[in-house]
């Protein structure tokens, strides 16, 4: 029994199924790990000019490095503490400092039609910042795609593929009952909750970023429970691309229209609606939906790219 437990601890044996994994493959993968590490060292570290310091020099360099690091941290902490000590007092009426927030709080509802003043601020008063912010996420997705998506130069090593394929096949044949059953009940609730947050951004706390994150998390849980095959049937790279493209270009053009109309002093003909109703807040609801879709695609895209180097199969 203890031997079995130790074996299970080492990962050599699956207690539930009582199937011993082939040790042969493990040895092969260990060789592969060594080879990969050697290759990595050769391509990156052991090149002239990379500045790999060894021996006594390294020790001196480390000491100097630590001393400098400690000094700069202490300096930064001291500076920040000093500044915090001299900041204007919170809550004290200061006409200069409260001019901006005052209008947001007092006139926000009337001017934007959004009960949630934060949504009114980020999507109406300071919509240009949020336009940039939603493209930050998109940029991050593109960078991760460049870094991780499989292509002729970025082949995953046999070692990585060994574990990915092994786990995928394992999940296909031994689907975890607990995760599947919980996922069965949980995923619809998560999706409905995400959509709720998304659609109520102008009325209650929430909005595009948080709702999209919940939707993305729901997709990730669904994938963990049912495997990539199920998701790949409806969520492909193409679909992800189209959704992101449609959402972001809608965002750019809608906001561009509002900016141009506002700057030229023209009426933009976007109804503000009754505050508190779901169709209120002018452009906030459609923009929230657009941002939410982008965030959901990005979240799932990250998961899928990190996990197997592609979105929606090959």
């Amino acid at each position: 029994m203890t031997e079995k437990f130790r074996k299970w601890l080492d990962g050599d044996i699956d207690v539930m199924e009582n199937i011993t994994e082939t040790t042969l493959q493990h040895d092969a993968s260990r060789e592969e790990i060594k080879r990969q590490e050697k290759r990595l060292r050769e391509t990156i570290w052991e090149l002239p000019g990379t500045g790999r310091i060894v021996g006594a020099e390294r020790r001196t360099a480390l000491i100097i490095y630590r001393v400098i690091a400690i000094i700069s941290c202490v300096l930064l902490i001291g500076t920040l503490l000093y500044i915090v000590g001299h900041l204007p007092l919170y809550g004290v009426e200061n006409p200069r400092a409260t001019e901006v927030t005052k209008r947001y709080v007092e006139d926000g509802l009337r001017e934007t039609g959004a009960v949630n003043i934060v949504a009114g601020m980020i999507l109406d008063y300071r919509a240009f910042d949020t336009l940039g912010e939603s493209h930050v996420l998109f940029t991050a997705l593109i960078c991760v795609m460049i870094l991780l998506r499989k292509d002729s130069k970025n082949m995953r090593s046999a070692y990585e593929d060994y574990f990915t394929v092994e786990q995928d096949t394992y999940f296909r044949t031994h689907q975890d009952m607990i995760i599947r059953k919980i996922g069965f009940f949980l995923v619809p609730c998560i999706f409905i909750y995400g959509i709720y947050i998304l659609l109520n951004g102008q009325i209650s706390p929430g909005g595009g970023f948080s709702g999209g994150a919940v939707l993305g998390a729901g997709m990730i849980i669904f994938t963990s429970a049912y495997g990539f095959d199920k998701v790949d049937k409806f969520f492909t790279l193409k679909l992800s691309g189209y959704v992101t493209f449609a959402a972001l270009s809608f965002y750019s053009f809608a906001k561009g229209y509002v900016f141009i109309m506002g700057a030229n002093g023209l009426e933009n003909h976007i109804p503000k609606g009754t505050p508190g109703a779901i169709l209120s807040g002018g452009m906030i609801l459609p923009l929230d939906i657009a941002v939410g879709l982008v965030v959901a695609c990005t979240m799932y895209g990250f998961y899928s790219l990190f996990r197997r180097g592609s979105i929606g199969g090959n």
Partner: protein
Amino acid sequence: MDIIRNFPLFTIVLSLFSGVLCTMLKGKTAKNYTLIYEGVLIVLTACVLFYTVGNGSSFTYTMGEFPAPWGNEIRAGVLEALTALFFLVILFCSVMAGWKFLIIDIDESKINLYFTLINLMTAALMALVWTNDIFTGYVFVEIMTLTSCGIMIVREIGRTTLAAVRYMILNLLGSGLFLLGIVLLYDITGHLLMVPMRETIAGFAAEGTDMTSIMLSLGILTIGLSIKSGLFPFHFWMPDTYGWSTPTSGSILSSLVSKAYIFLLFKIYYRVIGPSVFEALPIRKIIFVLGILGMVFGSVSAMRQKNINRMVAFSSAAQIGYIYMGLGIGGIDGYAAAMFQIFAHSVTKSLLFLTTPRLSEVSGHSLLFRNLQGSGYRAKDAGLVFLLCSFSMVGIPIFAGFSAKLNFATAAAGAGSYRILFFTMIALAVSSVLNALYFIRTCIRIYTSGRGGADIYAPGLYEEANARPGSDLPSGETTVSGSEEPLFSRLDYWIPAAILTGLNLYLGLFSWQTVGLIEKGLAMFP
């Protein structure tokens, strides 16, 4: 309201849209689209430039219906329009000249993603130039940081990944400090738009309130942006970043990205703090000293390199030092000299980074000096361009580099402080001599006849990492010569090289025109 007033907004929003659109296009279509689109942007920006010069004043553009302290705002004046125009022309030339190497360096399925990043970077560049809101600046600094890492790692060799990770860590530190500075300034002033911030700070100064916390916040913000732009003690990420990326990326990173950060920093000094308050702060002296140290130590490091791209990259560190020295000298002349140096250096450095790969191409794809011997004869066009750019970097009259140095000397003479004059003159002299030393060495190397290292070529790890994937290492007589290249790819290089060399000569010969425009822009900048 004139329609031209909408153009700055178009440059930003349409660039964002183009970035998203490029994910839907095929690689070559994306490149052609980007080139045409950059051309359109150049026309739009030129219109803004003529409009503001004709008007004699800058204009603000409210983003949406909410006016200044509540909504976002962009602002266009002569200086902004001129900077944007220069940036776009250089971007256009970099994309055009680097295409030949892009298709070798980047996997076919990722070329459109590369142009997505280029377009998003254009949006960020434009936003940093036009913005009148400090937080918008931060948002687009984020986009800039991410796209810079992206256009580096796209080459997918170990060196670029390593360089990108290092660059990303340092840049995130810089972004963090920049954000911290913004937060503190917002807390003190209660505003995010630049002009109301300045009014509040001027109010503090008039009331005689303690300025220490404002100065410290500004210091944190300055450290953040100087890490990102590569001021002296923070310049060690430069050689790997610029030297190993694909030529287009190297050219854009060295000539545009770091300059955009400096432009934003200058805007904060000039528009948020105000020139009179800024010149009384010790920060000015610190960046003056660091700029001079950068000029000297960047050049010293450049002299010690065995690799031409790393040498050119370290010389960027020296040139960034010039810009900070100009900001440190202060006064209208000092700022104008710094701005002029931004243009002069961008024009020269981008062309240098587009030229070295052509020299290395005819030398067995090696960037080592010993292998580059005689490459000026093997690739005649690239050799000539490298020579002209070296003249500009060293500061030989009729080239942009000379006018830039002359401007710094004039500004220092007019600064009214003997110490500043003394140190500026010494620094300019030492730096020019050092520049001359390493650029003359390179020119002699590439114009010494003989096959040089190509004969004694021993493929080692260094060269392997260096060689462009997909190309054969040279063996004996089969070295590629320039004449075998198809015409279109030579034109791809000749047109941008002609544009950038022409701009260089224009900046050198008619520097008074550009300086006049810059001074006009500075008058309407606050």
